[in-house]
């Protein structure tokens, strides 16, 4: 059940209605049932997988907790570490098998064949369980948090199971922490009109990002990228810029809908995207992009590796490990690894060149606080990030070819005068729609950057303006969104006898 499906639009209000009607003490059971139903709409069998992860991490929490009572310090630490290791190994093994086995096998075969060895690996035709990367990471964070005593070990299995499977953020994040979400399951959430309304408005904005912006941007990106060899550098550049916004809107929309949906039910989920393209450096970008994942890697991989405490070279190494892992997390394919490596490399090179940059700026007498400087930083950061997005979207070989064309080394002209718009799959109407939608996105992000809450502003307005905006937003999405069976005028062309 995707957020932008009719099923969800029926499911969610029904769940909310029941949620507020039933007594507090059974609410978590109800939400647990709803969450498993939500997940099983994709594939009922994979709920077992999620249950397995839940059982393992739940047990790890209890075992770590019991190990804490061991008086001998050495033994205590050894035991606790053992349980953490068991939890990680078993969970990552499941994740590896379902997400990476075919990729790894294929890679091994290819490497061996390069060395002249014919190898055969049985192919497992497994469908990637939806959201496995998300809930596995969420569940693993609990193991570590209990180990670090950041959270108590949850005794009530069903409450813990709800933490792992909570449907708003189950399949596409934000990847929650037990410190935040698990304790909220014990809270009593009253129906508060203002909160529910602001949750719904956030969901509405998420739907706008998804069904209008992301979908229309995808039209351009798909049409250009699918025929990249015949495209001018200019078209590829526009498509690549559009892809940056497409993936932002796509991913951001899921988070916004998730956060909004949780808010309607009284849960506070962490922010996942904070105006990422206003970042002034790649490191800053990663503090603003998919925050729940970046902080996960920071807390559970970068810091344990030593973070930046063990010298510069070690820090760079750690950074690289994190970003390679992040690349792999995004998908079982080498181009994601390349994408991750680029983002790691940007930061390492940036760090390495820092003294030089400082010197240059001193010589040129640059005011670092000036808007012009910050804007330039934003542009450069966007450019760097966007180049890496090429490899997120396309395979390595395609990506190189696309990058070459954009830089003007393509086999056809960089720019040809003509109907570029039409060639990229846009009509004047859809172009206008895209421009207006992107402006809305820009204004929304500027407001967020300036810490102005549009939702709060809106809710403070008089009823006529509030309702007018609600209706415009709802019907704007309904009319301009891309969904449903689709209207094809040619289907209706009957010889107009």
């Amino acid at each position, binding site marked *: 059940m995707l957020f932008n499906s009719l099923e969800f639009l029926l499911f969610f209000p029904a769940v909310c209605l029941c949620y507020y009607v039933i007594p507090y003490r059974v609410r978590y059971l109800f939400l647990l049932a709803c969450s498993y139903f939500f997940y099983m709409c994709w594939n009922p069998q994979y709920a077992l997988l999620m249950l397995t992860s839940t059982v393992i991490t739940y047990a790890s929490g209890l075992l770590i907790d019991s190990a804490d009572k061991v008086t001998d310090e050495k033994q205590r630490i050894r035991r606790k570490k053992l349980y953490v290791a068991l939890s990680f190994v078993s969970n990552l093994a499941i994740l590896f098998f379902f997400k990476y086995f075919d990729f790894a096998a294929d890679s091994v075969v290819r490497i061996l064949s390069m060395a002249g060895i014919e190898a055969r690996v049985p192919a497992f035709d497994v469908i990637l369980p939806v959201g496995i990367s998300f809930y596995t990471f969420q569940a693993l964070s609990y193991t570590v948090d209990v180990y670090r005593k950041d959270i108590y070990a949850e005794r009530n299995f069903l409450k813990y199971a709800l933490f792992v499977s909570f449907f708003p953020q189950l399949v596409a994040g934000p990847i929650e922490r037990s410190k935040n979400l698990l304790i909220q399951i014990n809270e009593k959430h009253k129906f508060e*009109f203002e909160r529910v309304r602001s949750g719904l408005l956030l969901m509405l904005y998420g739907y706008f990002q998804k069904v209008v912006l992301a979908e229309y941007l995808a039209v351009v990106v798909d049409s250009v990228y699918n025929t990249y060899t015949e495209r001018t550098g200019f078209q590829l550049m526009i498509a690549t810029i559009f892809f940056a916004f497409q993936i932002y809107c796509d991913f951001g929309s899921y988070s916004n809908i998730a956060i909004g949906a949780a808010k309607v039910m009284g849960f506070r989920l962490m922010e996942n995207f904070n105006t990422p393209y206003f970042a002034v450096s790649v490191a800053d970008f990663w503090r603003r992009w998919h925050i729940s994942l970046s902080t996960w890697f920071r807390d559970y991989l970068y810091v344990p590796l030593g973070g930046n405490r063990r010298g510069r070279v070690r820090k760079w190494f750690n950074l690289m490990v994190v970003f390679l892992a992040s690349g792999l997390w995004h998908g079982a394919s080498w181009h994601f690894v390349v994408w991750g490596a680029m983002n790691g490399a940007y930061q390492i090179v940036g760090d390495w060149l820092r003294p030089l940059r400082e010197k240059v700026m001193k010589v040129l007498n640059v005011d670092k606080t000036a808007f012009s400087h910050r804007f330039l930083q934003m542009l450069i950061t966007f450019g760097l990030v966007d180049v890496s997005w090429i490899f997120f979207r396309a395979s390595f070989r395609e990506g190189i070819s696309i990058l070459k064309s954009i830089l003007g080394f393509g086999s056809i002209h960089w720019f040809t005068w003509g109907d570029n718009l039409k060639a990229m799959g846009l009509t004047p109407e859809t172009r206008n729609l895209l421009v207006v939608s992107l402006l809305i996105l820009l204004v929304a992000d500027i407001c967020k950057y300036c810490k102005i809450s549009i939702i709060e502003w809106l809710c403070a307005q008089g009823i006529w303006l509030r309702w007018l905006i609600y209706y415009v937003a709802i019907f704007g999405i309904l009319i301009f969104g891309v969904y449903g069976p689709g*209207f094809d005028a040619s289907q209706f062309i*009957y010889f107009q006898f």
Partner: protein
Amino acid sequence: MKKNVRWIFAAVVFVVIGLMLFFNISEVLRRKGGGAADMVHSFYDTLDVLCMGSSHGYSAFQPNTLWNEFGLTSYVLCSQRQTAATTYYLLQEALKYQKPKVLFLESYYFFSAKKYTDEAALRLAIDGIRLGRVKHEAIQDLLSGHSKKEWLSYYLPFLKYHGRWNDLKNTDFHSDNYLKGSIFDFEVYPMEEPELPEDGREIPDVVYEYLEKVIALCEENEIQLVLFTAPYGYEDDLKGYLKKQQINETLESYLEQQGIPYLYFQKTKEAGIDFATDFRDYAHLNTNGAMKITRSLGKYITEHYALPDHRGDEAYQSWQEDYEAFQSRINAMYAKKNEQE
């Protein structure tokens, strides 16, 4: 508590306004077809005559002629490739808002053994039906073999047509009211009058099934049902043409048994249709031809049934105005033609 009552009230009002907007916008976005069920809801209890059937029907019937010459009010509820089954449901919808005394049913599509011809034709016919019992039954029956997901966009045509926002035309906001579901087309496609077959041909069972339902519905609502077949020719498929005409032969004897009047114009030559001037293509009459057929139908009504003449009645002033609009369009057309010549 008081606060809760307030927001529940506000939420209800919000949803009601939202639904009203939704259905109105849906109506604008809906793909309209020539002579479809676009406006059936816009008249209340004012119709004397309803005309139904396929494009052959809307090409052969001109409400303005019926008004001007007989003082009868009528509306064309035909749609492209309308089958007997779709007619049945469309008629049910019309009867929710209208009490016509005579129903003219054009029989051309009786050759089709399908409940509906194709998606586009079905949509043109039933998308205009308001959300309610009739629509529900039509979808359940006509689309019984399809998935629930497919049904959905028939219940809520918005899902299908919202992408038409960049394709809207003036007629999406206001249809040519004065035409009342008919068309205005004086194009001439001259041809020779084709022969008619001598023997009949089996009518598909599904047509009988729904024709009987239509007959029953008319009886129940005290509507005089009259079937007719508008003349048509063929382009190159003589065999197909003859097959279709054979259906009419069978229909004639069937209706005779049922005691239902049937006007087979091509056979009786009653309307005086001239194949050299009265067609806009090989299958469809132009407005000239439509006026002739309508004149014949009007004559038939006045001879057989006592329907009041509304001409001169204050309450029917708009019908006169619509006729004048229609007539002035014809005059303008001829004036332009003369100028060109």
